[in-house]
């Protein structure tokens, strides 16, 4: 294989594979390592949970590989192990995703197991009961876990009465009510071809991939039956929600309305978020909260664009006595960015980081396959990898100031705290 010399080299190697059965996937063919990695996503995750039955989509994602076709749950898992096939599914607010990785010599078996999981899951009573107990144990574990609690508290206040405010893993009350019929109905509604996006990387050519994809996906329903989810703005900006827990350190989440992935100011907003609390040791929050004052080990910010809402969101963990001080510093930085935007130097550094680090998203097959899916889900075009760094380079100080004003607005945020914060 010829070694690509630029990150963009991957983009020009993306093949759009459209199968005879009408399934589309993006493929990067690469024979360096004898494996095939596949990622896919389908729209409509836990936001599609039926009223009163939160946790249905997550339960479905957890039970797809617990027996399918001729294989009971243990036979299914033994077969995956026998051929060293990796397979897992997950559901988040907006989608259901799948991951499969196989050695190239076991490719046929791997695609067949994926087909069975998606098309012929058995939902045997034993498996449902066992997986339900596992999810319930996870819920009990998270019940007094500060980070889990603070996330739940934040979303309950920000999205009351909306699917985003409900617990995606369900509750100890809802799980016993979710039965085989609920899961099968969810599967039939969600797992369809119209919102399916697939990325494949590895030792397979387009023709062979097309045949495998048809066997797995072509027989799925053409169209998902999604319940409309209302678009909403998060509530609670300017308010505080404190949940009491006897621990020496408080866990904090803050956030307010953000910006849509499809907004023309998305790229400038990414740059501004990077200045505030992106993943480097020179961000404003890292410097002010951690380095100068030693208030916290972890402090971060992000943009969270959901399908039906958008947040700017962040968090930290600091001792109870210094929560008020930490939040005052964080809010001051947000206000300062909203009013003045980043400095020319900050903008320059952020652009350089975001451009330089883009290639780091492409150094494993699974990471590349995930990017191929992400770009399709966001409808950015097959040439996006080539264009993306140019978009970042083009962000001006004026763009950044405008985006900062739009994202951070009046600087008010909803703050959720779990612990025993003093003076908040």
């Amino acid at each position: 294989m010829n070694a690509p010399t630029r990150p963009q080299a991957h983009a020009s190697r993306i093949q759009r594979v459209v199968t005879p059965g009408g399934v589309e996937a993006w493929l990067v063919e690469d024979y360096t390592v004898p494996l095939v990695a596949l990622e896919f996503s389908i729209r409509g995750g836990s936001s599609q949970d039926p009223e009163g039955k939160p946790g249905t989509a997550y339960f479905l994602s957890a039970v797809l590989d617990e027996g399918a076709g001729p294989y009971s749950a243990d036979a299914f898992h033994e077969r995956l192990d026998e051929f060293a096939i990796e397979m897992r599914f997950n559901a988040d607010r907006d989608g259901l995703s799948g991951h499969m990785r196989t050695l190239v010599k076991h490719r046929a078996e791997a695609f067949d197991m994926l087909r069975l999981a998606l098309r012929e899951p058995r939902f045997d009573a034993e498996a449902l009961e066992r997986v339900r107990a596992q999810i319930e144990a996870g819920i009990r574990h998270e019940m007094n876990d500060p980070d889990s609690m603070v996330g739940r508290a934040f979303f309950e206040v920000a999205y009351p009465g909306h699917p985003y405010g409900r617990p995606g893993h369900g509750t100890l009350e809802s799980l016993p009510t979710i039965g085989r019929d609920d899961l099968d109905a969810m599967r039939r509604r969600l797992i369809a071809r119209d919102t399916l996006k697939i990325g494949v990387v590895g030792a397979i050519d387009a023709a062979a991939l097309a045949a495998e994809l048809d066997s797995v996906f072509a027989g799925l329903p053409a169209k998902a039956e999604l319940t409309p989810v209302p678009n909403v703005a998060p509530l609670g900006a300017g308010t505080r929600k404190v949940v009491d827990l006897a621990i020496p350190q408080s866990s904090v989440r803050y956030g307010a309305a953000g910006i849509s992935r499809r907004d023309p100011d998305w790229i400038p907003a990414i740059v501004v978020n990077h200045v505030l609390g992106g993943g480097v040791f020179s961000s404003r929050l890292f410097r002010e909260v951690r380095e100068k004052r030693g208030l916290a080990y972890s402090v971060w910010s992000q943009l969270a664009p959901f399908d039906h809402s958008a947040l700017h969101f962040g968090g930290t963990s600091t001792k109870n006595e210094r929560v008020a001080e930490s939040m005052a510093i964080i809010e001051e930085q947000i206000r300062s960015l909203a009013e003045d935007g980043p400095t020319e130097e900050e903008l320059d550094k952020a652009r350089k980081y975001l451009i330089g680090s883009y290639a780091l998203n492409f150094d494993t097959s699974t990471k590349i396959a995930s990017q191929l899916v992400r770009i399709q889900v966001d409808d950015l075009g097959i040439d996006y990898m080539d264009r993306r760094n140019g978009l970042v380079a083009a962000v001006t100080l004026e763009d950044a100031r405008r985006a900062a004003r739009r994202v951070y607005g009046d600087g008010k945020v909803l703050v959720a705290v779990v612990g025993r914060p003093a003076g908040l």
Partner: protein
Amino acid sequence: MASKGSPSPARDAAPLEADAHSGPAVSDFRLANGLEVVVIPDHRTPVVTHMVWYRNGSADDPIGKSGIAHFLEHLMFKGTEKHPQGEFSNVVAELGGQENAFTSVDYTAYYQRVAKEHLETVMGFEADRMQGLVLSDEVVGPERDVVIEERRMRTDTDPGSQLGEAVAATLFTHHPYGKPIIGWMHEIEGLNREDALAYYRRFYTPANAILVVAGDVTPDEVRALAEKTYGQVAAAAEPPRRNRPQEPDPRAARRVSLADPKVEQPSLQRAWLAPSYTTGAPGEAEALEVLVQVLGAQSTGRLHRRLVMEKRVAVAAGGWYQGTAVDRTRLMLYAVPRPGVTLEDLEKDLEAVIAELVEKGVEPSELARAKTRLIADTVYAQDSQATLARIYGSTLATGGAVADVARWPRDIEAVTAQDVQNAAARWLDRRHCVTGYLLKDEDGARAA
């Protein structure tokens, strides 16, 4: 299957051992000042992972100074004579690089991931901070507070982590593997600039370090750049020694129990002292690796089969073995009970699974599955330059060699059913284990 969110006891960083038998051609050489260099080519993407590993970790913390290895890891970002605080991180960020560091019981490592044309730059900075660190009380104080918050976040707010510390401290009665990597709170609070610098001068030398570069590079390029950068660091008069008291053979079964009002989901763990790849006789660690896979594999292991599927007393059960270690190490099994099942009953069931294996051995299909899985993981590891860099770095930092990594799949393949049965009989002895219970404190819950 994903873990379904089921809680399992935290494990220390236990890097996978893996292989490259059909993978990249790995080079290994030394500079004149004693620095060992490993180069792992991966030309698929024009990026590199650059790591420096030091052969010292929390188990080398002086008595009364627990946490110093980890604290120094934080302080290594505070600048040098040549490059004041923040300059290195600013440059890495401007290059679009990612950086961090981590401390384990046996090693401390620093890394950057950058586009390949920036390799020389990060090598220059990393070589500079091998000996040029400058610390003032003004930066040491706030960073100690950061570490204290880190400990609160990881441990003091989490009963499961507190039990994990207690189990380790009970299993290792004498060896420093019993101390938490981050340190005990009362000792972290007393760490100062002089402690950090004394530790730094003792361990941060070329002969104590391993440079690992993985990615779109050739051995010749790396050799030339390494000579130019790390080659300029003066050799130390004598290589540092690890002075660790060794753990005596255990004579007693021990039990620890932690009850906290915050615990809504109890769990059970059992830990044993076991040989590592470094201390074990040939094949011994490999047999333990296969044993823990047979017992603890996520959806197909014996524990899952017997406790979760058949007896239905647990929602999850598994195990791990920290084979990559300088000294005798630990093997741990755990189970999370279903509602209504006591930990005492679950413990008996777990013991029965071990006893069955000791008595009757493993089935050929189980053995084959375990080996297939372990060996396939080495192929999957080849897909990630960062993973390969970690495998080689951790192996070398714990006394292994490049050839050991390459040979590993064959050594796993050679493990027999009898080896696995013998390992279980020899090491999973109930008379010498530590059993840990995580429980809800009902009285405390009412009081709170």
